[in-house]
């Protein structure tokens, strides 16, 4: 065969088009995972552990936040009346109070009702209530506020709007408690954010360095590919797909491990710690957070591989 003829004979290319190339790169990535078992296991394991730590933190944070939100239900404004208002006046007042932005529920507590509550609370010590009649206790209105309207300034402005309504007597809302509760919530969120960011940076650092080491271990492969005429994209694409697969697999494993931790230890931790007697224990992460962990894994794998490849692909 002449040289010219020989060079002219080229089989049909299989990698043409997006799907052709994608299927080649994907099969190469899968083969790489298989052929570099140890390195792949180390990478997936690191990603899984790192994400598990982050998601455990997230689980605890979300539950504490939820619990604190529950406490904020106690932010309540109470209006006391010197004289019990007539039923018509009560309806009118309720309507006007509900018109103030931030009000979510208004309950009228009549003198009778107040006495009933007091008796219920002092059950077994009824003797204390001898001679106490409903007339002694004031009628009141208990006003609950929207979740978004419970910070100190908002409560104060609600109260001042409330006081402008005719017929409103004494208003009580535990000003000190609201202040303290809100500063606790602010501190809690700030700590959460600080710890969360610190954890995120640590996870990023550990995962990107692990990936860097695993890619360094395969730098010969990158070199050989470059020397036989592979383009930068051709060299990088399978590694990037590999990174995405490892990240996704690591994230799935971390969620599975989180589930195991949750059902083994955390589900009843609420009772154990006595922090939230109202509920049976900690609740699991909502689906949006789980999707976030999966996406985080994929991004970790992809970005970790991409930044490491930049250092080792010289073509």
């Amino acid at each position, binding site marked *: 065969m002449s040289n010219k003829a020989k060079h002219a004979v080229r089989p049909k290319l299989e990698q043409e088009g997006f799907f052709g190339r994608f299927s080649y790169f994907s099969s190469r990535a899968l083969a790489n995972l298989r*052929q570099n078992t140890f390195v792949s296991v180390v990478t997936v394991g690191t990603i899984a552990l790192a994400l598990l730590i982050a998601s455990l933190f997230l689980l605890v944070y979300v539950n504490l936040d939820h619990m604190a939100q529950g406490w904020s239900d106690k932010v309540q404004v109470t209006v006391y009346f010197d004289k019990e208002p007539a039923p018509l006046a009560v309806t009118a007042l309720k309507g006007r109070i509900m018109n103030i932005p931030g009000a979510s529920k208004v309950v009228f507590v009549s003198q009778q009702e107040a006495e009933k509550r007091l008796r219920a609370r002092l059950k077994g010590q009824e003797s204390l209530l001898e001679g106490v009649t409903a007339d002694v206790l004031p009628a009141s209105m208990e006003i609950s506020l929207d979740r978004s309207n419970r910070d100190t300034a908002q409560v104060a402005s609600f109260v001042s709007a409330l006081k402008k309504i005719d017929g409103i007597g004494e208003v009580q809302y535990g000003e000190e408690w609201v202040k303290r509760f809100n500063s606790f919530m602010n501190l809690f969120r700030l700590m959460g954010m600080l710890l969360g960011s610190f954890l995120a940076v640590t996870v990023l650092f550990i995962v990107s360095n692990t990936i860097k080491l695993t890619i360094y271990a395969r730098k010969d492969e990158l070199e050989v590919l*470059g*020397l*036989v*005429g592979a*383009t930068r994209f*051709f060299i990088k694409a399978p590694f990037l797909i590999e990174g995405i697969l490892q990240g996704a697999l690591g994230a799935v494993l971390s969620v599975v491990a989180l589930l195991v931790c949750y059902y083994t230890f955390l589900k009843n931790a609420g009772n154990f710690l006595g922090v939230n007697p109202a509920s049976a224990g900690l609740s699991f992460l909502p689906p949006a957070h789980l999707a976030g962990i999966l996406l985080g894994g994929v991004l970790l794998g992809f970005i970790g591989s991409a930044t490491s490849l930049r250092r080792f692909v010289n*073509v």
Partner: protein
Amino acid sequence: MIQLHNVSMSYQGDAPALNDITLKIPKGDFVFLTGQSGAGKSTLLKLIYAELSPTRGQVLIDGQNLTRLSRSQIPLLRRNIGVVFQDYKLLPNRTVLENVAITLEVLGWGKRDIGRKVFHMLKQLGIEDKVNATPLKLSGGQQQRVALARALVNDPKILIADEPTGNLDDENKEQILEIFKEANIRGTTVVVATHDRRVITNSHRRVIRLEKGRVIEDGGAAPEHAAIGEDGYEQ
């Protein structure tokens, strides 16, 4: 055609590895590049496959000036150049088939065509029974053949080999040289860097001798009376 015009090459902080080299290697030629260790043989080869860029002068392959190539054009150049490295550079966790197939995968060949072509190549080199073995299970000579198969499987216009016979016994050396000759007969330009004088004298080909980064001899096969040590290597 490979052309070097007044090429100099210095590694950072070192004395020049190549000093004002001008030479032409016509298409279809078979050239031995010789000289002692550190004479600049490997550096010269690296300039041809654009692993290095000269600090001065021009390198042209088929009229294309490599010093003016963009990064994205280098892969296209390398697809026409087969390189056999001194340390083979085989991937230990891939089979012989996969190691050789890399060259064709880069070109976008289909799986079936790759299998057929690689097997044919391995058969020509007498290692077709090792197709599914991994390189570490092969002898030095067999590994050398796999490296050769990877360099030759896409019928490159130029074949470059850096000390290809360094670790081989005489029988293997002969066989490897025979493969180079066959590739040359098929039209491939062959450039072999070696300091094994026996290989050169037996081949009767053009010899370019380097010393301290300069061409000190360019002509026919080295004379038999050249200083050769007991081990057959240049003194």
